[in-house]
């Protein structure tokens, strides 16, 4: 779990837990109602590169609180900015009034300190981006191409949340994550556009620099550009696809995980909703969402409704084990929450969603998985994807792929897409490797306008029957 090393103080040292408990208890005025109070403070620093230099540094912060009343017929949510205890205490009353909260005065008010990230952290992020820019500038393709486009972005976000429920619980959690993302576009031979992307994430800027040094990112970009330059046309048609360790987790996150979210299932938007308890894949396939794993971007001690985090098995030995629920979907489905509630901020309602989602290790040697294939596609990096959770149909860009021939990975191939169906893809998982790896930590998941950090993981894995379609570019 992230350790508290920054100077930001726990919210519960600044807010009276008894006050929060009273406010939350006041929300459940009627029998059967549930209410909770969510208090949040965010300190954020972001550095955006302009070309190869850190050009814009954004520092900001603020806080707010929201109450929610939950009943079988729906939810009422009222959010106000600021951490003023009196204002927080008045939230239950505001939530019951149709008119909603009145604006607070923004007239001159003063305090001794602002809600900003500490200068050392901002400086560390900027220094990281500067070093990254220098490393990328040394990549031959970028150094020689005047028209190269380089997009650098790094950020540190420290979020503190307190959840007080009408059932008497009051918990606090701190989530800190530093991440970076780079995208480069250069002109290759014959005017072909070559693109490469890389990134990384860690609990703080110092760990980011250690776990994902700028030189390693530059090396990945250099290799990706070189391979793109010499890529052969992708094989097309229905082929066995080997998903390299780490990257294919994105496919399971999008094509399976979202379909196992309780809200989608309750709205008839999940191809998996009617398959609970059924065997849909090999007994070597187990898919888990685990927010307790150390050092991953989706990790947290509590979810955003105050439930203590715990691993949740979504697919157990090939059988659909269950859905992710927050309190609202659990209430409607007449089941228990699974600690899967996430909200981007106090301004948003919680949604059931993934944290760190991964396929567990299987019995096969990763090399054996490739060796067993006379012809296929090896996917080393996936890009953007589209998934219809109702049908589980998906399409993903393959940013970096290789031709498999004669049981060997033989050559990089040009960008292509893989298309298929999530349910059938699970059925078609043929071999699972023993080399579980997680993504680099720069990923985010978007759902209904709310962003959330999420990690994906997977060992080398072979799926048969996916369609490989050449990219039109």
């Amino acid at each position: 779990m992230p350790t508290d090393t920054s100077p930001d103080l726990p919210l519960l040292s600044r807010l009276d837990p008894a006050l929060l408990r009273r406010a939350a208890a006041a929300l459940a005025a009627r029998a059967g109602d549930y209410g909770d109070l969510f208090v949040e403070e965010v300190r954020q620093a972001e550095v955006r590169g302009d070309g190869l230099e850190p050009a814009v540094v954004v520092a900001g912060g603020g806080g707010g609180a929201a109450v929610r009343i939950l009943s079988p017929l729906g939810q009422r949510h009222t959010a106000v900015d600021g951490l003023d205890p009196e204002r927080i205490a008045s939230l239950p009353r505001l939530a019951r009034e149709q008119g909603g909260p009145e604006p607070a005065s923004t007239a001159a008010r003063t305090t001794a300190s602002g809600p900003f990230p500490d200068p050392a952290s901002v400086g560390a992020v900027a220094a990281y981006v500067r070093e990254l820019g220098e490393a990328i500038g040394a990549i031959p393709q970028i150094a020689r191409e005047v028209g190269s486009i380089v997009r650098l972005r790094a950020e540190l976000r420290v979020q503190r949340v307190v959840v007080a429920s009408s059932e008497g619980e009051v918990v606090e959690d701190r989530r800190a994550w530093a991440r970076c993302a780079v995208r480069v576009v250069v002109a290759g031979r014959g005017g072909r556009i070559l693109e490469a992307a890389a990134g990384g994430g860690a609990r703080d800027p110092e760990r980011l620099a250690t776990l994902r040094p700028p030189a390693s990112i530059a090396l990945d970009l250099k290799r990706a550009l070189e391979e793109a330059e010499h890529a052969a046309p992708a094989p097309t048609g229905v082929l066995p696809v080997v998903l390299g360790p780490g990257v294919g987790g994105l496919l399971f996150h999008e094509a399976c995980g979202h379909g196992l979210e309780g809200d989608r299932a309750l709205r008839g938007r999940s191809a998996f909703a009617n398959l609970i308890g059924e065997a849909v894949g090999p007994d070597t396939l187990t898919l888990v969402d685990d927010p307790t794993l150390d050092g991953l971007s989706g990790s947290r001690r509590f979810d955003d409704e105050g439930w203590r985090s715990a691993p949740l098995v979504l697919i157990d030995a090939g059988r659909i084990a269950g859905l992710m629920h927050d309190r609202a979907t659990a209430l409607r489905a007449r089941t228990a929450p699974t600690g899967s509630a996430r909200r981007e901020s106090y301004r948003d309602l919680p949604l059931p969603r993934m944290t760190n989602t991964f396929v567990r290790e299987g019995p096969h040697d990763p090399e054996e998985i490739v060796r067993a294939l006379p012809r296929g596609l090896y996917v080393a990096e996936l890009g953007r994807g589209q998934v219809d959770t109702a049908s589980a149909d998906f399409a993903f860009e393959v940013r970096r792929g290789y031709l498999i021939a004669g049981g060997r990975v033989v050559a990089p191939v040009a960008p292509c897409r893989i298309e298929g169906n999530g349910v059938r893809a699970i059925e078609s998982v043929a071999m699972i490797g023993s080399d579980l790896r997680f993504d680099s930590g720069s990923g985010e998941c978007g759902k209904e306008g709310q962003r959330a950090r999420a990690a994906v993981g997977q060992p080398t894995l072979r799926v048969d029957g996916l369609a490989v379609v050449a990219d039109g570019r």
Partner: protein
Amino acid sequence: MEAVLAAARQAGCVAAEVFVKDGRGRQVTLEPSSAGEPPCRLVSRTREAGAALRVVDRDGRAGFAWAGLGDPIAPADLVDAARRSPAPGREPAPAPDGLAAAPDLAPADGLAAADAATAGVAPAMVRALELDLVDPDCLRSGDDAVIERMQEGVAEVGRSGEAMVEIDRIVVAEASTRFHFATSGGMRESFERTLAMLSIALVPAAPEARAVVEERTSCRLADLDLAECAREAILRSLPEREAGEVVATGAAPSAETIEIVLEPRAAASLVAALAPSALSGGFPEIRRPSALTLYDDAIVAGRPSSAPFDGAGRPTSRRILVEGGRPTGRIEPGGAHFLRPSYRDLPASGPAALVVAPGVRVSGQMPEGASGGGLSIRAAIIDIAPGAEWTVRVRRGDFWNDGKRLGPADGLFWEGSPARLIQAVSETGDDPRWYQCGPSICTPSLTLRGLSTWRREARAGI
């Protein structure tokens, strides 16, 4: 704001700009549940105020900081945070107005320009009144009244959905926001704007139907037509009808001479597909004139995309992007509107609203090609790959001849170079309508002639 500007001056900043956004909002969501379950209602009310400060220091480096205003904050703290953030190692360069600034940074450009433009700006409040941006009834109706209006959309889907589509969710949101802007150059402006937003998401209830989201925005909730929005969503969602019979029997007008009318919603799909190239300067060059004229318009009355000044404090305007099919401008740093979705965001250039100039073709006039007959398209999937080719696929369309409907044209598609598609726009209608397809888009129907021969077999991946 004055205190922050004074603190910035005291700290040695040569230019400073304060942006404050203060607003309230309500979002009501209706989710008709699966059979046997009562519908789920979500009502969310928010209140948020925040400030952003941009500064240019003596060395010409730009800094940016933001803070929520729900808690007290000392002006000096905001200034300190912004001054701490200037990027290290950047060589300053002189800005046009003599202020030291980093001219290749869009936000710094905007900051310098805001100072320079201050003298000639009409008071924003006056302009805001002219733009009619405020609905006095915003946020005054009760939740139940809003939910009752949402039932208009539910009823329309029940009436017109042919039991092939279902409502996933309907969302109605309202917001009332006050914007304040002050610069070290003397600009002191503010205005208020209200927003009403409608979103209807449909999901398939039959094979071949599609999941779609249809959205509308206005400054007034009363302007939003739930039934109209639901009807357009249904047309985009319903399964395609078989076009084979009309085409196979030869009853369809000749593919070479056919006149095609994209009804306004289908035309909006075309504008949305063209937008990236129109905004980036990559608009294709055409050989013969087209009737397509496209504006980026931030001063349309009654629209939430309008404002008296943009996110960098500069007066807003209407800019021609495409005239007669030929590109005349593009969205670029320093030359366009700066958008600022939140006080937490740096200003970034982008379109306010994309508006196609209307013409004289009478709304509802049936298409009649040179050889007689035409095709009316009410819903289409239009995809334009940058620098490559476009495809137009009819989701819902009909052949017409002599004022009579011949039969469906669903599933037909065209492909070719973007230039040919733009050249084919030969007439615009007198029926402009507003849609929210990513950006706000206002377009009338568009008449296409001389496009190419359609195809019936869908390519893989379309």
